[in-house]
Structure formats: C-alpha cells, structure tokens
C-alpha cells in the first residue's frame, strides 16, 4: 500500500498531529508549531544526529530520542518540554558553551536563556592549545582539572578565500557532509581523531591548498558557528569593522554559467563580504561552486566611487 498524506497520527505534548509516512519527529513538532532547536540537522544534508539538542521524550523508550532523525510512527507519544528534555537540552548547551566558542551561532544565546543554561558552571574555558591536530587516540593526561578543556586553538589561515577557526567548531559534521557525498563529492575533509580530540581535518592537517579542496565553499555555507568563514569577513571582524547594521543582503543570479544559481550577496561598504545560496533553493540546495562563491571580487573593483557614488569609468 502506498503512503497517503497524513497517514500517521501521533501525540505531541498531548496534541494530535498528522504527518506523512517517512516524516521525522522534528517534522511532527513543526507541524504542531512547537519550536524545536537543531544544530547538526539541515534540510539539505543527511541527518547525523550528533548534537542531541533536539532530543524529545518518547513514551516507552529508555532514553530520549533525537527528533531530527527519529521517524514518526503511528501512536507515538512524544513530550518536547518535559523535565528530562529540558535537562538534556540545558546540558548540551552547557557542554557546547564550555568547550566551543559559540558566540557566532545565532540561536545559541537565546537557547541558553530558554533552557537556563550556564556554561560557566563547568569552570572557565581552557586557554588555546595547538596540540589537537597531532593527538593520538586513547590515553591522555588530565591537566589541573580547574579549567574546562576546550577547542580553543589558533585560526587556520592557509588560503585567500576562507579561514578555519576551529575554536568555534561544534563538530556538527555539516562541512564534512557538504564536502562529501551530500553535495560536493570532493572528500577533502573528514573527522579525524577520537573522543574529545576529534577534529575536522584534511589528511595530516595538510593546508587546504595542498589538499583535494576545490574551494567551492560549500562547507562555509553549511557551517552554523562561524568556524568556517569568508576571509573577507574574518579580516573585517579582526579589524573590528564588521558591522551588520551597515550591510545589505541581495539575492541575484550567478553571472558565470547557464545553471543559474541563486546567490545571496552580503555587502558592506560596497564590498561583497559573504556569498551564500538559500538552502531551499531548487537549483542549488544551498550549494555553489568556487566561481559563484568566491569569484565576485571583480564587482568590488568596479564598485562606485565612494565619493561620487558614480560607477568608475
């Protein structure tokens, strides 16, 4: 029998919700207009369900279940705001906040407020270390234990197009998926190491320019925390000049080839500082190639003269 629309009925927070077969609990929560946080889920990527911020309580299950990937089944009874759910979500926020610089993840601060998360409860975040990339799996040494071990490390700047600031990496796997079988099929990066030493890496931490990377920037587009960032944005931020109030955002079509990808241009002081594509766009599904993503510098060179406002001749 083929699946009919609305053929699954379940209870979410006591309300009856209908979803189509194949839908997830996240879909069900959304159908019931229940705001459910996600970090590692994205509509254009295969769910990896690793961040666990979306967990919900499912009657009969021993543990909580990830809403983003658990398929809805008829008769399920789901709670999205029980004490157990709130505790786990709070702790996920605290564990992330105590180990990762989440300041550029837009929904992080509001979520901390919503769940009463205080990452400082686990102590001050530890100072940067650049030993992560060569750490050996398994045995490790516990430092003084008075600081919370963290991802803090130096920013990797090895090309002119984008930087990798893994102090901000929450290991959501999105960049790996975007680079791999979900979009780009380049497989330039993977998750290396194990446990808390896990990190996003090229082989042997080779600079991107020596790796298989083709600089499509799809990883940058997927990154939710600002760990992967346009060099232009990084430089402006480093100079203290990044100012979203002075930015405009415009959708246009990529000028390069006949595919016609939608580009979303973010412009500050007449310079394109970030290029993305809407993840629900039917042409791109959010993914671009190197030309559309980074090949727009020439526009700035032809930008209007800041004095006269007239295009250069």
């Amino acid at each position, binding site marked *: 029998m083929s699946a009919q629309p609305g053929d699954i009925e379940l209870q979410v927070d006591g309300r009856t919700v209908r979803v189509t077969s194949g839908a997830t609990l996240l879909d069900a929560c959304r159908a019931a207009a229940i705001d459910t946080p996600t970090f590692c889920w994205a509509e254009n990527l295969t769910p990896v369900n*690793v*961040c*666990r911020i979306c967990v919900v309580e499912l009657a009969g299950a021993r*543990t*909580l279940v990830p809403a983003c*990937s658990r*398929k809805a089944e008829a008769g399920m009874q789901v709670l999205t705001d029980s004490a*157990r759910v709130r*505790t*786990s979500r*709070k*702790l*996920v926020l605290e*564990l*992330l906040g*105590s*180990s990762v610089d989440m300041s550029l993840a837009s929904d992080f601060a509001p979520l901390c407020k919503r769940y009463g998360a205080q990452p400082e409860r*686990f*102590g001050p975040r530890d100072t940067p270390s*650049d*030993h992560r*990339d*060569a*750490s*050996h*799996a*398994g*045995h*490790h040494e*516990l430092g*003084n*234990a*008075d600081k*919370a*071990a963290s991802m803090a490390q130096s920013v*990797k700047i*090895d090309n002119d197009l984008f930087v990798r600031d893994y102090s901000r990496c*929450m*290991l959501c796997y999105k960049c790996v998926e975007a680079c791999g079988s979900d979009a780009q099929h*380049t*497989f*330039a*990066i*993977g*998750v290396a*190491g*194990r*446990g*808390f*030493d*896990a990190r996003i*890496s*090229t*082989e*042997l*931490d*080779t600079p991107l320019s*020596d*790796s*298989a990377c083709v600089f499509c920037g799809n990883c940058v587009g997927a990154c939710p925390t600002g760990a992967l960032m346009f060099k232009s944005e990084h430089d402006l931020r480093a100079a203290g000049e990044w100012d979203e109030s002075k930015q405009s955002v415009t959708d246009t079509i990529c000028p390069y080839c006949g595919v016609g990808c939608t580009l979303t241009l973010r412009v500050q002081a007449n310079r394109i500082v970030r290029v993305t594509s809407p993840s629900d766009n039917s042409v791109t599904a959010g993914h671009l190639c190197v030309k559309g993503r980074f090949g727009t510098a020439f526009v700035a060179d032809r930008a209007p003269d800041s004095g006269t406002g007239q295009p250069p001749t």
Partner: protein
Amino acid sequence: MDLRPIPVDPSDEERRAVDSVLGAPPADRAQPAPETARVLRTQLLPTLLALQNRVGWVSPGGLGYACSRLGLPPAEGYAVASFYALISLGERERSFAHVCDDIACQVAGAPALCAQLERELGPAFQPSHRAEPGQARPPSKAHWGHSPCLGLCEQAPAALVTSARTDGPRAQAFGSASCASIWRALAGDEIQPRPVHLDSSGPRRLLARAGRIDPTSIDAYLAQGGFAALRRAFEIGAEGVQREITASKLVGRGGAAFPTGRKWEAVARAAAEPHFVVCNADESEPGTFKDRVLLEADPFAVLEAMVVAGFATKAGRGYLYLRGEYPRAAAHLELALVKARERGYLGRNILDRGFDFDIELRRGAGAYICGEETALFASIEGYRGEPRTKPPFPVESGLFGKPTAVNNVETLVAALDIVRDGAAAYAAVGTAGSPGTKLFCVSGNIARPGVYEVPFGTKLRALLGLAGGIPGGRKLQAILLGGAAGSFVGANQLDLELSFEGARQASATLGSGVVFVLDDSVELAPLLQRIAAFFRDESCGQCVPCRVGTVRQEELLGRLTRGISLGSFEQEGNLFAELSQAMRDASICGLGQTASSAIESALKLFQPFSRKTP
C-alpha cells in the same frame, strides 16, 4: 571524485606491507573503479594494521599508498587511521610495550610499575603533541606507553609488547608484568604465559574443554564432542535451532542481555539478502577476560557456534571481530580456521549438507567503542568506529546494511549446548528467569582470580568463596559488578543473586560478568578517576553529551580529588547528577549512557571524596 594523492612515496617495506593485504598492484597502476573502491574499503583497517605491524607506524607515504591502492580519498584514510589507539601516525620504536594502568592493574601495582619504567626505560609515549601542517607527528623514542585494560586482569599488572617486523609481526601479552619481563619481551624473548585459573560450581558447560584439551588440535575437540551441535542443528533444521534457542531463554552475554532466539528468528526471517553472522570478540570492558579464555582455550567451539548461528539465520558468511590486543587468541583462531576448512566444517557444502558458510577473522586496533555492535560494523566496513542510530536495528540493517546476527563469544558458545542437548536440559540449572550457567571474571583483591562458571542464581557470597575469599585478613570494601559500565555494590550486598533478575532487583547489572573485588586497603578516589578517564579516552566523540560530558565528568572528579571544587561540595554533587542524567538520556550509544553509572553508584554507597570545601 578526483583523488589527490599524498605527495610522498612509500618505502619498499611499506609497499610490501600494503601489498600483503591487497595483492600486487595492477600493471597499469590504474586507480580502482568506484564500484571496486566500495568493495575495497572494507580492507582499509587490515591494510593500516599491516603497515603498523610490519613497519611500526603509518607514515604519510604508507597512508598515501594504502589510500591510492584502495581508491580512497586520503582525508578519509586519515580519519580512520587516527581513530585507533594501536595505530601510530608518528614514527615509533619498532618494539613497544603497552602497559595496562586500568582498574585491576591499578590495584595490583601498575602505578609503581609505571614509575619504575619511567626510571629504567625512559618517559612514556606522549599522546598529545604538536605537528606541522601536512607532516606526520614528530618521531617518538618512547619504548612504552599506557594502555587501557588488556583483558588479563586476573594476572594484573599486564602488558602487551608488539614488535613490528617486515616478515610478519610478533606480539605477546602477559600478566604479572615487571620491568624485567617487559624489558625481556622488548628484547625479543618469549615470556611464558601463566595459565588462567578456571573453576566452576555445578556443571561445566562453557568451560567443558577450556584448559583440558589442546586448543590447536581439531581431533582433541572432536574427541570431546566437537561439532556434535552442528550435526544436531542439521537434523533439527534452521527453524528447530531457532526454536530451541528461543525456548532456552538464552540472552546475550555481551552486556545488553537481549534474547538471542528473537534475534536469530528476526534475521532468519529478514527478506533482504545476504544475511551475516558476527561474533563480537572485541572484549574491552575493563575487568573482562572470559571471552579471551574461550577464544584461546576453545577456539573450535567459537567457530562451530558461528556455523550453527549462520545455519539458523540463513547466513553465508561470518565475521569474527577480535580485539587487537589478543595475540594468542588470534593465533589459535587462525589455526582453527585452517583446520576447520580442511576438515569440511567450514566452506562449501559443510558436512555434505548443502550448507555453505565461511568465516573471516578481523582484528580491532585499540578502540573499546568498536565492541558496540554498530560501531563494530562500521569498523569492518572501513569507516570510523562510530555507532549508528538505532532503529534500524542490526537484525534488519547491520553489517553492510544487511540483516545481521551479532553475538558475544560466550552467548555463541552457550548456544552450542542448547542446540546439542535441547533447551530443557540447558535449564536443568539456573533460575526460572535466567536458565543455565554464566562465566564470571573475578579479579582484584581475591585469593584465586580467574574465570568461574556458575549456575545463574548463585549468591555473590558463594562466588567469592569459590574464589578463595579476600586474602591477607583484609575486609571487603566493595565489588564492581558488570565492569566500568556496571555499578559498585557494598559488602552488605553479598546475598545478591547472580541472575539477570537478581541484579536488576539490586539495581545492578551483570554486564559482561565482571566481579572486581576491592578490600578495605584500596582507595576508591583514584579508581573512580581511572574509570572516568577510560570513558573519556574511549568515547568515539560523535555526540556532544558523551564527547564533552565524559571530559567534564573526569574534570569534576579531578576537582574533588584535588580539593579545588568550583562551588560547594553540594553544588558539585548537583552538577554531577545533572551531567550523568543528560549523558544517560541524550547520548547515542551505551558508552555515553553508562559512562557515569559506576561512579554514580560509588558516590551513593561510599564517601570516596572528603566533603570539606577548600
């Protein structure tokens, strides 16, 4: 997909190591086609291990050559290689001692042994390091490093010495380790193994042959009724086997206690083809060594049981995933595989019954998490040992996405008796809820540490008595039941009945059969700290609650031990309570879900940390 190879040539030795697994390279040096590459991927870990075992480390040149032979992006090869503790991505001494400092060894003097090694052999291997981008880790001159439990807890302290050699590696694991014996092993001397102490109360089923017959002789096995269960299985048919197993109420001995009959029936029924059988011999739970004993001392029984399972579940192929730290078990199994094939107990048309089944032995590479069934599949397939989400369950989508019956070594061996003698005979001992017998790994402060087979329902007190009680006139302080993922019980709980329902009643678990005994001289705080370190080291790192939670748990215990608490003692207690709840509730797999259970039980039962706040 355009592969960009690592721009370093392999040495001749590295080429030979890789070719020893993959065969000589094709003459045209073409990269494998994508379809072949998918099939080849499952050879990744064996190839990396060949490099490690023959060259002593996986160099950029070796990794690059392995990846191009396998048609694999180097970033993916690196992602997998860097996952395993037994694989070194920096140059290391060819002979290297892995010295256990885990719970049983800690209590048996490992800290003193390690201090002595520091003085006489030099500093231990440094896990944390800095390397230049694109370069290997800097070379290490260390002769030894720390290791988690080596499954030799009854002879603690234990060591595993590996020697990389071009002509095939050597490895020896031994107990009662001393500076002298480790030194001799590093120099190439053979250390005589000490036989494990085996005993039983009631019928000896699982240990019927172990220690009594030559484990390298198939004739000895046959003389003791070997392969009778397989013949019986052919008589009663696949459905008959399923019926007996289900009727016997056999449940898994790997820790999760899932009904084996239901698992086998589900796989047999599954529509997708082919079906697989996997024997989980990754035994890495600290304090566990029962599977090692079966694998070393009764390898044919494990193979026979896998054939029976394959017949019952309509599988044509089995994988035996053996932890990398068990060299003797590997040698005995390899020999047993050859002999079983020679005699027609494996391969095509087994015993002329038209049933084809063969077994491939796979070695782990130092990762406790690969004992989790879905991580184990990922490891065999050539991916990082990261557990997968359930559902779908392995019976439906397991190894290579196919219906898979995965069972612990002891579960499989128990199934032999059930098939041969029937479920009713099996239930002649044990309790109504837990029929039959169970192996327990007794170690710590006990007169005769070893593996004990007792009927379910035996009192904990009786088991300790069988093992000779606590030596030296000491008093019992605590018992860790079920392993690092289990829980502590106190001296007032000796009437606990060793059965699944008895353990549940006492809010404990039998887990993997660990009974780790501590007398009143043992300090609990460092032991708890070691348990916390174990989970931090062994977390795969996939999910936030476990990847960061195990670190925070270890830091919290570190603060309590050092008296540098962040708030009041009560605040730290609340922090721990919330942390352990979130880890239990929100982690993907059993590792994170149970990472705080032993510590939680110890905090509840004893006062391992002083209450004063600095």
